[in-house]
């Protein structure tokens, strides 16, 4: 008989939803051993193919069962420099876990029988962090004179920086905001990714010799040409998906309607949840609606609910989604966590208009009921609004989490940098090189929004091409 999956311990929903402390506590050694022992060590492991960076999952899990956590750690680090981050934020159920042979195949995501690879990765990553394990330097003389500029310090940028610094290149990372981390800092809340973990991983890169320059916007403060002129041999662009999309409906600019980016940036980067100790405010309502079905919507809703509770407001935060739960692109764990904490869900609802009061603050949302039609280009069933089904919901604060578009700050001033119709960078898929020689790219600025680990996968590919490029110079 097959053993039951080991559930990860979590802070109690009632208590945790009044703070920004981490929700999932991670496996103890015993739990990790038990979960790892469920892995049947397939002859042809399919899970590895499900990982965008190709971590040797079978091998690292094997080393866990042997209690050789150090080798498990180095096994992951061969392919992924940030196991403690990815073990927390990877949508594993759509990637490695879905590919796990133990997973049932009738859902668009892994079933609970799949090995909890992400929790094992997190356990291993945290073991490495707590024991200060360091990957031996692989500095190579041939890279000692190479100087690489990385633009953006999100998942793609820090991954590329790590890969190249480890081989001995001088890497300088330029970040527009005041602190490095990109979406890991402004987008993902501390209850999912504690700041000490992020800081540790970034400090690790600093120890490897990576230099971080914050408050520096390539395209504004300096151009790509100027970077080359100042001595950089290659540039990696990990710009991210910068501009929030809105619904484009009437009343959307009323006060207290936020983009998820703004709402989360205020809370995560600017620490508005510590207001007034931190000076950046964020408003909170009695009836909060979050529009969208992705991880960002879950993060925004859970953050909103926490702020309601922390301010003594009866929790009333509702996710509004046009399709149903099964089509939601969010991680299943986030959906579960949101539900446990008290976030409400209203499915098959399409917002039509926001209405407000004299002072310009939102008061209600008008919406239509939907039904599901045929699958669209995304493979998900298309929501169809039902005529005459209009209704109103109380809403004194709304967060719009319906995706992002490419930020054009750099591309507008760099006409030779080719983009597609969405404004994303066009790259050679083999090398991730852009239309400008020596300029490479990865992450959300290539091909639109993806996951942290997908961005890292692209960055790794680019880092190999950058290394080749440098050797040719």
């Amino acid at each position, binding site marked *: 008989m097959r053993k039951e999956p080991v559930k990860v311990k979590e802070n109690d929903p009632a208590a945790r939803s009044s703070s920004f402390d981490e929700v999932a506590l991670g496996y103890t050694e015993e739990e990790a051993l038990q979960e790892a022992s469920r892995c049947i060590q397939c002859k042809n492991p399919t899970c590895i193919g499900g990982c965008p960076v190709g971590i040797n999952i079978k091998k690292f899990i094997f080393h866990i069962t042997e209690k050789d956590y150090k080798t498990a750690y180095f096994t992951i680090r061969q392919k992924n420099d940030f196991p403690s981050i990815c073990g927390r934020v990877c949508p594993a159920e759509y990637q490695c876990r879905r590919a796990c042979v133990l997973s049932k195949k009738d859902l668009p995501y892994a079933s609970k029988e799949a090995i909890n690879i992400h929790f094992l990765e997190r356990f291993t990553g945290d073991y490495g962090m707590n024991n200060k394990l360091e990957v031996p330097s692989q500095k190579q003389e041939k890279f000692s004179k190479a100087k690489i500029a990385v633009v953006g310090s999100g998942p793609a940028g820090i991954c590329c920086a790590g890969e190249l610094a480890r081989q001995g290149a001088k890497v300088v990372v330029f970040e527009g905001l*005041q602190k490095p981390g990109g979406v890991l800092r402004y987008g993902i809340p501390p209850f999912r990714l504690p700041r000490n973990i992020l800081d540790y991983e970034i400090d690790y890169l600093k120890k490897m010799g990576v230099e971080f320059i914050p408050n520096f916007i390539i395209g504004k403060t300096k151009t790509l040409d100027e970077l080359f002129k100042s001595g950089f041999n290659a540039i990696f662009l990990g710009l991210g998906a910068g501009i929030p999309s809105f619904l484009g409906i009437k009343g959307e600019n009323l006060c207290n309607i936020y983009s998820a980016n703004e709402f989360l940036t205020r809370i995560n980067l600017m620490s508005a949840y510590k207001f007034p100790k931190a000076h950046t405010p964020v408003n909170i309502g009695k009836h909060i609606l979050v529009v969208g079905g992705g991880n960002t919507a879950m993060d925004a809703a859970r953050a909103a609910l926490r702020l309601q509770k922390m301010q003594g407001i009866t929790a009333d935060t509702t996710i509004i989604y046009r399709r149903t739960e099964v089509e939601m692109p969010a991680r299943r764990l986030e959906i579960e966590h949101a539900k446990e904490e008290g976030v409400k869900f209203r499915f098959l609802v399409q917002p039509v208009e926001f209405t407000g009061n004299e002072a310009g603050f939102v008061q209600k949302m008008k919406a239509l009921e939907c039904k599901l039609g045929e699958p669209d280009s995304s493979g998900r069933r298309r929501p169809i609004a039902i005529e005459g089904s209009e209704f109103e919901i109380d809403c004194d604060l709304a967060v719009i989490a319906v995706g992002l578009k490419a930020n054009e700050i750099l591309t507008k001033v760099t006409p030779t940098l080719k983009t597609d119709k969405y404004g994303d960078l066009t790259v050679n898929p083999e090398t991730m090189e852009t239309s400008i020689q020596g300029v490479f790219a990865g992450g959300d600025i290539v091909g639109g929004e993806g996951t942290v680990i997908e961005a890292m996968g692209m960055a790794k590919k680019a880092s190999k091409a950058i290394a080749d490029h440098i050797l040719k110079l």
Partner: protein
Amino acid sequence: MKIIKKESLTQDSGVRVTKIEVSSPDIAAKAKAGQFVVLMVQEDGERVPLTIVDSDPKKGSVTLIFQEAGLTTKLLGRLSVGDFLYALVGPLGHATEIKNYGKVILVGGGVGIAEIYPVAKALKNAGNHITSILGARTKDLLILEGDLKKACDQVFVTTDDGSYGRKGFVTDVLKELLTESLQLKAYSLVYAVGPIPMMKRVAMVSKDFNVRAVVSLNAIMVDGTGMCGCCRVTVDGKTKFSCVDGPEFDAHSVDWDELTKRNRVYEEKEKHLCNLYKVS
């Protein structure tokens, strides 16, 4: 990010306007009239946008002028020469379109006078004839009159209480100038920066005379690079982001009521902060 010079421009009637020069060679090398920076005073502070009033690429410094309004500008006012800002990023936003328009009227209200100054200089250099109308509540609050007189061909001053220049509003003078030149179509552009009600009135007056008007908006921002959408403003029925699409827009197309309301969204929290930290 070191403050290398500080000068108090006015501190009368409870209004404190301060000029600081901050060392920032990279920004100074790039800054153009009409652009802005986002700064932070301390790690747990707010990000606030300020117009770049002047830049000296040789010295590697930028000049900022601010009126103490919320907690951040009050804390900024307490910094001294030798202190460092926590963060300074820029130059952000589009630069003013500088070309020879012919005759241009610049309108500055309150601390907005500081923001028309770089535009006045740049337009003058491009061969324009510049008339400035400067408005202040009272004589003691008028800033940069001397600098603008040097940069412009003609300067008018109005004060609300008549303590200096003409009693009345900047738009009174604007209306007269535009009326006088009605037949000649002498002025081809009005450029205005100041409190929203002033810019709104400038928009109305210039529209009546069918003269193009450009305003630089002071929407609330967080990142200042298009990432958050906090600064969105409706222009000609479409949503624009002040930080990356602006900060300058066609005055006749701005939804002024929406902007007025959106700029008040944190009014109470700001008061609370100032009381709490006992800064006035």
